[in-house]
């Protein structure tokens, strides 16, 4: 079981007022809409396959790169919501609950949550104290991937502080053999999200969890000097000339999943990639992870040695239509079994207490879950907690322009603070 006590404090802020209720559909073929594509879509299909086998209820999974805008449109103007959706953004869940688009799951789901999840994780599924979602996946975002053989050949060592990391990046850039960083931020209408993760990780370290939480909730503006400083730090560490493989044009044009490729190229195009645990799905088949493996990881270090905050994200399942079939699938997803097959494949961390550490297939995943327990602070992805129009829309667009160098930080901050002010007036 993963210790999530610190996370609970952060997540408590996620829960806001909401209302529920939706019509029942009664149709037998269920549609689940989500962000997983390719291999991850296969894994999700495997997760629900035992449900179909046992109940005879077919489940169609549809995963879109434009998941947020597609889901908003389906739940809103198109009035064509799926039966269920896997949503990585608590901010979007909150908005959909407020709109009355999300159905309250059956009482059996609440019982299953209590039985199979630690109390800290159940918070992920609540809006204003009421259960609306089944937490499905935890993602650990503060990982820096590197190839031990490449580091050893050059005498490089994983850094213990953020300042050491900056010195290491400078050393790699000066050597001129490869760029310090791999980075790709292209993802359809979600283009820009890896850049928000970078800023969040750095802000969490340089300004501390309190400022970070204020920035996520809107009390600390983008205009704040500490936020501006975090953006500047990310620029200096990752985006300055010579720091990212292929230069800024490549960063903007490269898809998030392809960003991993130069790390494994021969000769390597970059030395490090900061990306979540889910990046293993994009690595070459058969990649081994560990100190003696093809690739290893360290947590993005804190400002001082030994204090390492960890940024996490989480995907939760919500229900749009009440029907016996959809209720049964929600119950199954909240049950002890759902997720085990994905855990066994790797690249997936379950928030369930019924899936113990020894269910994970590798030392890497067992270490990862224990690192979560040791983290000095666990913070939930701030942009995912913001109202979707901001955190899953404007911020992605603006940060892409900022990364591309076509917009300065002052303009970005002004636009985002103005949008947040409008959103606050509208009662979001």
């Amino acid at each position, binding site marked *: 079981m993963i210790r999530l006590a610190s996370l609970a404090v952060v997540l408590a802020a996620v829960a806001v007022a909401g209302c529920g209720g939706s019509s029942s559909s009664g149709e037998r073929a269920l549609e689940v809409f989500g962000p997983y*594509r390719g291999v991850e*879509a*296969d894994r999700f299909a495997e997760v629900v396959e035992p449900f179909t086998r046992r109940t005879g209820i077919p489940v169609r999974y*549809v*995963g879109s790169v434009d998941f947020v805008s*597609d889901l908003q449109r389906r739940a809103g103007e198109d009035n064509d919501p799926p039966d269920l959706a896997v949503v990585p953004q608590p901010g979007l869940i909150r908005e959909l609950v407020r709109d009355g688009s999300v159905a309250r799951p059956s009482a059996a789901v609440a019982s299953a949550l209590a039985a199979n999840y630690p109390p800290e994780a159940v918070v992920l599924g609540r809006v204003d104290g009421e259960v609306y979602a089944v937490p499905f996946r935890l993602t650990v975002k503060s990982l820096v991937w590197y190839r031990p053989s490449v580091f050893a050949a050059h005498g490089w060592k994983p850094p213990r502080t953020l300042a050491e990391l900056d010195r290491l990046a400078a050393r790699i850039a000066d050597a001129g053999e490869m760029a310090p960083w791999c980075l790709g931020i292209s993802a359809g209408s979600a283009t820009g999200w890896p850049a928000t993760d970078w800023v969040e990780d750095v802000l969490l370290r340089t300004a501390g969890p309190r400022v970070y939480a204020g920035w996520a909730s809107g009390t600390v503006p983008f205009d704040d000097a500490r936020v501006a400083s975090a953006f500047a730090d990310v620029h200096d560490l990752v985006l300055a000339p010579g720091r990212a493989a292929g230069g800024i044009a490549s960063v903007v044009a490269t898809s998030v999943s392809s960003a991993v490729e130069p790390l494994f190229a021969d000769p390597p195009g970059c030395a490090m990639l900061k990306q979540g645990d889910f990046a293993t799905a994009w690595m070459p088949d058969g990649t081994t992870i560990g100190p003696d493996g093809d690739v290893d990881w360290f947590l993005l270090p804190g400002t001082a040695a030994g204090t390492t905050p960890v940024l996490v994200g989480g995907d939760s399942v919500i229900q749009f239509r009440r029907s016996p079939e959809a209720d049964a699938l929600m119950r199954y997803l909240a049950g002890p079994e759902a997720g085990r097959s994905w855990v066994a494949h790797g690249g997936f961390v379950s928030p369930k207490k019924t899936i113990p550490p020894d269910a994970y297939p590798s030392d890497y995943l067992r270490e990862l879950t224990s690192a979560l327990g040791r983290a000095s602070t666990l913070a939930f992805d701030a942009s995912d907690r913001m109202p979707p129009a901001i955190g899953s829309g404007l911020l992605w667009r603006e940060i892409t322009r900022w990364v591309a160098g076509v917009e300065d930080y002052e303009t970005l901050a002004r636009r985002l603070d103005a949008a947040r002010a409008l959103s606050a007036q509208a009662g979001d």
Partner: protein
Amino acid sequence: MTHGADSPETPAGSIVRRIRVALSAPPTEDAVAAIEELLPEGDEFLPYFRRFMMLIVLSAGIAAFGLLADSAGVVIGAMLVAPLMTPITAAAAATVMARNVRLARSVGVITAGMLGAIAVGYLTALIARTQVTVATDLPGEVVARTFPGLLDLGIAVTAGAAAGYILPRRSTLSALPGVGIAVALVPPLATVGITLEVGLGREAANAFLLFLTNLAAIVFAASVMLIASGFRPSATGRGSLTRRLAITLLAVVVVAIPLTLHTRAVIRQTTLVRSVSSSVVAWDGSVRVVELDARVDGSRAVVELLVSGPDEPQPAWKLASEIERRWHGPVDLTLLYQRDSRFEVSVR
């Protein structure tokens, strides 16, 4: 009116008797001579073999250049020059008549012709300095010979039967070139040579499978037709006819197995392309497909589409769902709209 001691013949019995009489009627002397001339013996063999190999080299050369130039007309010309049909039909006749020496000789001629045609295809591709490195760059005429299917087996069986019918009947010989066009023998062999030269082993194996299909089917079907024309084994070899036919039939069955798998793959691929096309129309009638690349990868459809249209398109997830519904399998869709908007959807 009185009846004899024999019981009256039923209509079915009458038909069976007539067929039996027709089948047991020996072939005419002219028919036997025509079959004998297919593969000269004695002193006439070497001049025949030289002519045969010359025609193999010429027809394979024409076929190889026609294939590389992607010209169907030239490839058909090569089929008319190709001399392989005669030793193959001779092999069928030797099988039926249980003449083992003649069978071995015709197999030898076929093997020499086969190797010669492959070598000419290889050399032609070498001389033409073909720059092809991936299968998708091959000319259409070459690609068409690297996807043999069950239809090819059907063509070869009927064409082989036609050859078995025509060759013992000199009055019908004018129809023989049609058989040569219907069931190509040299172009697949030239394709084997070309694809080997550019290093595409899998395509070469498929083209060779097409040749083997045609060879086995012609021998089997021509044998059956020759039996129907009254050809029989000599008295000493009579007992082995069934076994010989069984062996040729077994050869047909053996090639039919990979052909069935190929055909299923081709049908799945064709169905996918059709499903994608009809899904696009159902999805958004206002868009135009600029490029469509759909392939089956295991059980999954990998579809890449470039479309253009007057307005914002419908959401890509709807198109992927539509394709999945029509194709009945998992879909990974990459949709490019007007070249600047990229959407990716997976449906399982």
